[in-house]
Structures are given as C-alpha cells and as structure tokens.
C-alpha cells in the first residue's frame, strides 16, 4: 500500500505485526476497532432509550390524568407472573455476562453453555408473556373493537378486581383503562420485539460459537450483544414497577 520511502508511525506499527483476520482494513489496530464498535453500540442504545422514551412520556402523562383508571387496570396484571419474569430476565442477564466472561477467557464450552442458557431463559420469558397476553385476550382487555370495560364498571364480576377491593368506576373513567392496556401492550410488545430479535441473534451466535468463533480473542460481537441484552433487561426493570407495582394497594 505504501510505496513512499517515508513510513509513518501507523504504517510501521501495522507492518510490525500482521493483521489478525478479523481486523477490518480501515482500522489501525484491533484495539481501535474494538473501541469504535463498542462506542457505536453505546450510542445505538442511547437512540433506543429515546425510542422508548416517547412511550414512557405518554404513559406518565396519561397516568397522571386518569389515575383511578390506571390503578384499577393495573390490578388486572398478574404480579406472580410479572415477578417470575423479572427473575427469569435477571438470570438471563447473569448467564449472558458469564458468556462474555467465557469468551474473554477463551472457554469455548462455557460460552456455548451460557449462550444456550440465555437463549432458553429468553424463550421462557416470552412463554410467560404469552400466558399473560392470552389472559388479557380472554377477558377482552385488548384495546380495539372487542374491548370490554366490564371488570371496571362492575368489579364484582371479576375475581381479580374483587381481590383488590376495587370500587366501580364511572363509565367515562372506566373507558380510560383502554389507554392503560394499549400502553401495556405497546410497551411490553416493543420490549418483546427486542427480545425476539435478541433471541434470533443468540441462535446465530450459538451456531458460530460452536464453530469456535468469539473464543479466538475477537470478542467484540459477544460484548456488544451483551450490552444489548442487558439494555433490554433494564427496559423491563423500568416496565415492571411502572405497569405492575406502583399503586398496587390503593
């Protein structure tokens, strides 16, 4: 590449040791490459925060306006499933962190095991989410044509509402529960979409890790995926209290 007699630092350095195959041509060193891609991932996560931020804003505003409806509607969520799912997700973050550590310390079987566990825990999360969603469908709590305010204008008809001693809401307030459920589906749905994308990438990574990738010193991809996975986890850490926990006993 350089036919000039004057060689500059960068070129000399590059000439000293041969490039590993995973170093892209436009980077000066592997360290620079890892640094740049890591930084890019952090910025991407920043855009994700802004993306979810719009939904969180809508949630906070509407919750303030229609407080009784949001409280009554949140009583419909199953706190057992929610807590269970939180535990599942935190465990998956742990196994993912183990995966990154295994990749860094070049333990191939450990990496594959961690990735498989993360993959399975991700599937368990989605499974539980499906159970929760189907409960909502059965009760006609999915916003749209079939939405029913029965549980809120007549709480006595609904065991979940009875359990919390909900008082009947006036019709106009009861109808606002539909907004709560829309936000519930939009936010957890958007979160689940991120999980599905993550699980798909995990599948690809397991396949590659078995072939020996990531344990040859080039761990950027695993690290960056780890960041993504933890981010998705953290979104849930905010969704869980906002949707399930706060004002539980009012």
């Amino acid at each position, binding site marked *: *590449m*350089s*036919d*000039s007699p*004057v*060689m*500059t*630092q*960068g*070129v000399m350095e590059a000439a000293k040791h041969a490039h590993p195959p995973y170093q*892209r*041509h*436009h980077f*000066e060193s592997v360290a*620079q490459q890892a*640094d*740049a*891609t890591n*930084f*890019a991932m952090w*910025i*991407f996560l*920043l*855009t*994700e925060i*802004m*993306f*979810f*931020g*719009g*939904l969180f*804003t*809508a949630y906070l*505003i*509407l919750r303030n*306006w*229609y407080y009784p*409806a949001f409280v009554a509607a949140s009583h419909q969520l199953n706190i057992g499933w929610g807590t269970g799912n939180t535990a599942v997700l935190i465990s998956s973050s742990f196994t993912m962190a183990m995966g990154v550590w295994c990749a860094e310390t070049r333990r191939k079987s450990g990496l594959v095991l961690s990735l498989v566990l993360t993959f399975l825990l991700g599937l368990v999360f989605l499974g539980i989410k499906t159970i929760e969603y189907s409960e909502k469908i059965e009760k006609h709590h999915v*916003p*749209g*044509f079939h939405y029913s305010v029965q549980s809120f204008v007549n709480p006595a008809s609904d065991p979940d509402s009875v359990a919390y001693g909900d008082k009947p809401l006036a019709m106009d307030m009861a*109808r*606002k529960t*539909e*907004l709560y459920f*829309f*936000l519930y589906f*939009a936010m957890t749905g958007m979160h689940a979409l991120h999980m599905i994308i993550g699980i798909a990438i995990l599948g690809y990574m397991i396949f590659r890790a078995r072939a020996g990738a990531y344990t040859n010193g080039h761990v950027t991809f695993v690290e960056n995926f780890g960041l993504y996975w933890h981010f998705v986890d953290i979104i849930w850490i905010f969704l869980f209290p906002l949707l399930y926990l706060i004002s539980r006993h009012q």
Partner: protein
Amino acid sequence: MSSATIVNLPDQSTAKIPKMNYLSKENGLLSWLLTGDHKRIAILYLISISFFFFIGGALAGLIRLELLTPQSDLMATDTYNKIFSMHGIIMIFFFLVPSVPATLGNFFIPMMLGAKDLALPKINLLSWYLYVAAGILALYSMMTGGVDTGWTFTTPLSTHYVNTNVITTGIAIFIAGFSSIFTGLNFIVTIHKMRAPGMTWFRMPLFVWGHYATSILMILGTPVLAIALVLVVLERTVGIGVFDPAKGGDPLLFQHLFWFYSHPAVYIMILPGMGVISEVISTFSRKRVFGYTAVAFSSVAIAVFGFFVWAHHMFIMGISNYSVLIFSLLTMLVAVPSAIKIFNWAFTLYKGSITFETPMLYAFGFMGLFTIGGMTGVFLGTSGTDIHLTETYFIVAHFHFVMVGGMLMAFLAGLHFWWPKMTGRMYPEKISQLAALVTFIGFNLTFFPQFILGTLGMPRRYASYPPEFQVLNVFSTAGATILGVGYLLPVLYLTWSLKYGEIAGDNPWQATGLEWQTQSPPLTENFREIPIMDHEAYDYEWLERQKEKEVASVG
C-alpha cells in the same frame, strides 16, 4: 492587488487524472451496490438525493403554478393538499436531512480526520439502502393516492379525518429515520475514535464540528419521531386512543413528540451547511476562521438549545401561557449561537484576501439569506407576533429562507467547492458564477414577496386566495421559474464537467484541509500513508511551508 483568483491548476497539457483512484479501482454495478467505501456511498447518496430534489422541485413548481391565479383552477383543492404535503415530505426527509451529511459529510469527514473510512462501513451502506427503500415506499404512496396531511402529520387530522396514504408514508419516514440515525451514529463514532495522530478536537475543521453537532441531534431526536409515527400508524390501524380525545388521549401529545424531533431537525438541516460555509469562507479569504473555538462551540450550543424550543411551533395550539413564555425566551437563546457564526464569518472576511469563485458566491448568498431567515425567526419566536404571523405565508417565507436560501445554497457551495476533489475535474467557472447569481435573484424574487403576503394575512396551505394578493403571487411564481433555471444549470454543467472539465490536481483552491493534501479523486484508502496532523486547522502558513519543502525536494 494580487490576481483575482486563487485557483491553481496543473499544466493542462501534461496533467492526468491519477490512474488509481476510488472510482477506477473496481468496475461494474455490483462493485457500487456492495461497496463499503464511504466515497462511493457518498456518490450513491448524491445521485439519489438529487433525484428526490427534482421530484420535490417539480411539486414546488406545481404549487407555484396553481398559486399564479386566485382561483383553484390548475388542480382540485384536494390534489393541491397532496401536492404541497408531498413537496414537504420529499424535500425534508429525502433531500434536506441527508443532503450535506450523507453526501459531503460521508465523503469528507474521514478524509478531514485522516482516516481510511468511516468506523462502520457496512452500517453506512445499510443506511443508504434504508434511504432508498424509504424513498421507493414514499414514491409508491405518492403514486397510489398520496397523502394530504402536510409534512407534519398533525393529529387528529392524520389519524381521524383523512383517508389518504398516511400509513405507508409514515412507514417510509420511519425507515428514512433509521437511515439518518445510522449516519449520525457512524459520524459520532468516527469523530471520536478514528482521528489521525495529532488530530486533536480543536484541530478538526469546523465542517467536522458542524457534523458532530448534527449527529447528536440525529441520534437523540430521530428515535422520538420514529415512535411518534409508530403511534400514528397504530392509531389509524388499531384505534389505540393515545392521540384520540374521544378515548381520553391527547392530540397535543403527538405535537410534542413530533416537534421534539422536528425542531432539532431544522438544525440537522442547517448545521452541516454552516460547516460548509466555514470551510469556504476561510479558503477564499485566505484566513483562519475568526474565533475558531467560538464557532465550534456555537454548533454544539445550537444542538443543545435546539432540544429546548420545540413548543414554539405550538403557541396557538392550546399550551399554557407559562409554557409560551418560557419557550419564547428559550427560542431567543438560539439566536445567540447563530449570530456568533454570522459575525465570526464576517470577521474572517475582514482584511482577508477575498476572491469570488463560485463556492464563495454561494457562501455570500447563504450569509445574507440565512440572516434574513434567522431574524424573521425572532418575529415568530415572540408569541405576540407569532399569533398574527403563524400559519401564514410569513412562516413559509421564513423557513424557505433558512432551508433553501441557507441550506441549499450551502449544499451548492460545498458541491462546487469539493467537486474537483470528488471527480478530479473542475466545473466551468463562468457559467457556475452565473448560476449562483441566477439562484440568488430567483430565490429573493420567489420568497421575499411571501413575507409581505404573510404579513397581509394570506394563509398557507390553500389553493385559492383573495384576488388582491395576486400581484405578489405572480412575482413569486415568476421568481420560482428563475430559481428553477438556477438549479437546472448546475446539473447540466456539472455533468458536462465530468468529461470535459479541466484537470484539477490535488489542491486547486490552495486549501488547508487534509482532504486537499492527497490526490483527486482520492485513493480508496484516502491517503498513501496515515497523515500526522502537526498544525492547527486553517493554517495557511503551514501550507506555504509545505509548498516550499516540495519545491526544495524536487529541486
């Protein structure tokens, strides 16, 4: 008096375009469609945004033609609504937002930093594909009925009262948004991590600073637009109610989310242009930009302030008086960094050795027109006058002065300035100076009457108007015709110059940026060896010393 030009071309009888360059390295369509080279992607972007510019321009022509007469006679009023909506959508999302960053920024940021490429070449290519996909979808929705909400998709109009292609257009803009997020992300990573040895933050050209500020806006603002559009699409398809007052939602919430992006987007559109102007003004007055640090930080300040002024688009939409007061004050603050830039460019010119090549003419156009556009923005930021002027032609004139008079002039300045570097050939000087002049005259004739029309009370977005406004509208339409000629000329002579232009050599302008210290057109890896930056930006004495060294070594 020195000569009236700084252009320094090699001897035309012996000069040749370097055999090995980024254009000649590989051939065939696939070598372009699968390229990772930031320069080739910039060219792809240049072709695509020009295509969309002329579609948007044709729509603008139709608008002006309709407004030639007071009656709605050229097209039905519904059609007129669609035409101006599509004009806005195409010009903003498919031309202005990617215009300078995706073409000139893509091409020159790595070169100015002394890097071989952007940090993430594949993401860069992906961003172009997303742009093309979004563009095709937008054209498809235009041809299958169009959309008539205006480019702002204002709820509840867009969710409840129209039955046009809001969903497809919304998805198109959603996709285009990701293309711009990826561009911004790539720039930020590149500027942080890919600078050549010695290239400190305060040795970077101001063009790079402008793009850094732009990228911050892109990555923080665009996702919010994305979610706002997702919600509009869901509101239309499922009827979710977040923006529907009948279900307890709030149409104003959409406005907040939309303008949280779309006001910063105004700065996404202008900041890269300001970067171009800094380069051009310095080069053609042979002086370091006055107050380099202030200009650099004013870009960042615009980016930061830009996030705190969005509600000035909503003064008449029922937000509280206190919000109006605060947002009005904050809006005034943005005028400060913008003024810093204009003043510093003026001081750069002071006692400089000014020459009047085409990029400089466009830059002068920018300075004048942007100042008018910016000052009239203060009228609109003041809530009292805003109530009278908003939704009239005054606001149309205001943002066209900033966007067309500002950004488009800057884009053309940059395109002419870097054309020799991109293609290795000069554009023809005389006719391009004429084009710059025609553009300036046509522009003023088109948009200045609109300030008067707006003050008199002519509302925007109507196909017909009272007959007493006709004289000024005829002026405006006549100006638009001249403006059209001004934009067609560069297409013709720039295409001509690809084959017949003079050979430019490495550094025809005697400019100081690293991008000029390599061959034109550049090699795929930009530099034969990684440059080491050992001087400040815009150091013309360093350039002189370089030349002396060269002469000494050749001698």
